[in-house]
């Protein structure tokens, strides 16, 4: 059975912990002098990105290389893509190279699922599809939280977590919300009504347990974790927010408001940050920021995902060991 990682939705709690525990071991590999293990020697990983990305792409590329896989990066300009037909052509072309894993980013929701359906012997990893999911980002956020709360002798269940900003267009938020719902955490969505409509939670996640706030201070109250989301500049042109100055006046996460409303909280941001728009420089660089840990953990999480998926590719054979 070829496994894929297409989204966090549908993963069980034990699936989540399997990824996190495996990633935990890979943190050590990245701290060695020789940052390479022979595990995926002879495996081919194709990173096919239909959307520009530097951080996610290089993170997957490094992860594959540290596992000794051969990695090939294919960037396909979004403008040159006619959806549907071209995607299936691309998938067929990639299939002819006989890769073991395809890591795919696409501006259309569901593109990696489409590819997975048409590939018989290749694992597909979703590296971000439209506003739908970005599972490895959600996993690296969880790993970052797991490491942090372990120092406080706590796990990552029973937490209060709030997502602030453009939840509507954020695949990172969507994947993370699924994960925290699975873990049984209290999830809040905070932002202007245009970006976090009141009925959004029920529509997107099919649950009434998610609370929606349009007032930042009220939403932040007593949170353990605040996830600041990137405010895309295009949203102003699309009239979701009147202008960014006004947005930041109401929703920028500052140390002052955190100290008052959620003094014990830690802060995550999927990057890249707009300092002064959705998060203040003081918070981003301050002691409650786990943002740099997130970047470090990105490689370990992607190594874990590639390791767990690539195992399932290829003819299983009974081999004695001892």
């Amino acid at each position, binding site marked *: *059975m070829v496994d894929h990682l297409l989204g966090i939705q549908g993963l069980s709690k034990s699936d989540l912990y*399997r990824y996190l*525990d*495996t990633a*935990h*071991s*890979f943190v*050590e*590999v990245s701290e*060695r*002098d*020789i940052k*390479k*293990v*022979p*595990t*995926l020697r002879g495996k081919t990983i194709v990173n096919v990105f239909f959307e520009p990305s530097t951080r996610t792409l290089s993170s997957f590329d490094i992860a594959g290389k540290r*596992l000794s896989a051969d990695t090939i990066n294919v960037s396909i300009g979004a403008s040159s893509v006619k959806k549907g037909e071209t995607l299936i052509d691309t998938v067929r072309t990639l299939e002819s190279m006989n890769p073991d894993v395809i890591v795919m980013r696409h501006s259309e929701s569901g593109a990696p699922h489409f590819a997975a359906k048409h590939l018989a012997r290749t694992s597909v990893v979703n590296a971000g599809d439209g506003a739908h999911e970005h599972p490895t980002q959600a996993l690296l956020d969880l790993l970052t939280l797991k490491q942090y709360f372990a120092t406080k002798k706590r796990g990552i269940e029973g937490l209060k977590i709030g997502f602030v900003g453009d939840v509507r267009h954020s695949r990172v938020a969507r994947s993370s919300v699924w994960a925290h719902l699975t873990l049984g955490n209290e999830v809040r969505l905070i932002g202007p009504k245009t970006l976090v409509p009141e009925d959004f939670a029920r529509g997107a996640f099919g649950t009434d347990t998610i609370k929606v706030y349009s007032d930042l201070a009220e939403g932040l109250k007593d949170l353990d974790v605040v996830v600041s989301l990137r405010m895309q500049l295009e949203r102003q042109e699309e009239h979701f927010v009147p202008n960014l100055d006004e947005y930041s006046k109401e929703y920028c996460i500052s140390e002052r408001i955190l100290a008052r409303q959620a003094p014990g909280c830690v802060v995550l941001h999927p990057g890249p940050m707009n300092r002064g728009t959705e998060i203040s420089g003081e918070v981003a660089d301050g002691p409650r920021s786990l943002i740099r840990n997130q970047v470090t953990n990105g490689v370990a999480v992607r190594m874990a995902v590639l*390791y*767990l998926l*690539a*195992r*399932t*590719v*290829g*003819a*299983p*054979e*009974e*081999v*004695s*060991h*001892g």
Partner: protein
Amino acid sequence: MTAKYKPVPREWQLVMDEETISRAISRMSFEILEKDRDIKNLAIVGIRTGGEYLGKRLQQEIQRIEGTEVSYGVIDITLYRDDLSSSQSQPTLRGTDLPFRIAGSRIVLVDDVLFTGRTIRSALDAIIDFGRPRRVELAVLCDRGYRELPIQADYVGKVIPCQRSQLVRVRLSEMGYRDGAYLIEREER
């Protein structure tokens, strides 16, 4: 004082009991010291999971005999296995921890059962990724034969004559069992 041990299946045939295992560890410790008296660079490395408790016991026994500290580490060979594609293999990674300098050290690798030699081959690859040891030796509690690679142990607790199809399992108090090594007819998969 009667500690409650988890039971092992009745059909498992005991080939080393508590006492035999304890004597074997003691004897192997003396042999390790006899081979090279310089223990400054000595490091005991247990292979997860079968060798980690045995390695710890060897380290403690050597420390007791010599009255000085001996380095100890564990390696997880999962990432170095040659049967990764086999879906039977355990996926759980438990991590490597070698808190000492590998370059120039004398390493004694420890495992519970020596069989095909493939685990040891993987362990050697793993060790060498961390540096160039002066020498690597191998200590096993049970040598059951049927090697598939040219590997042999320097220190052996006991040679277990058996058939290729039989299994040899070691259970220790650290895992909640009474110490024992067992010969088992092949389990149903």
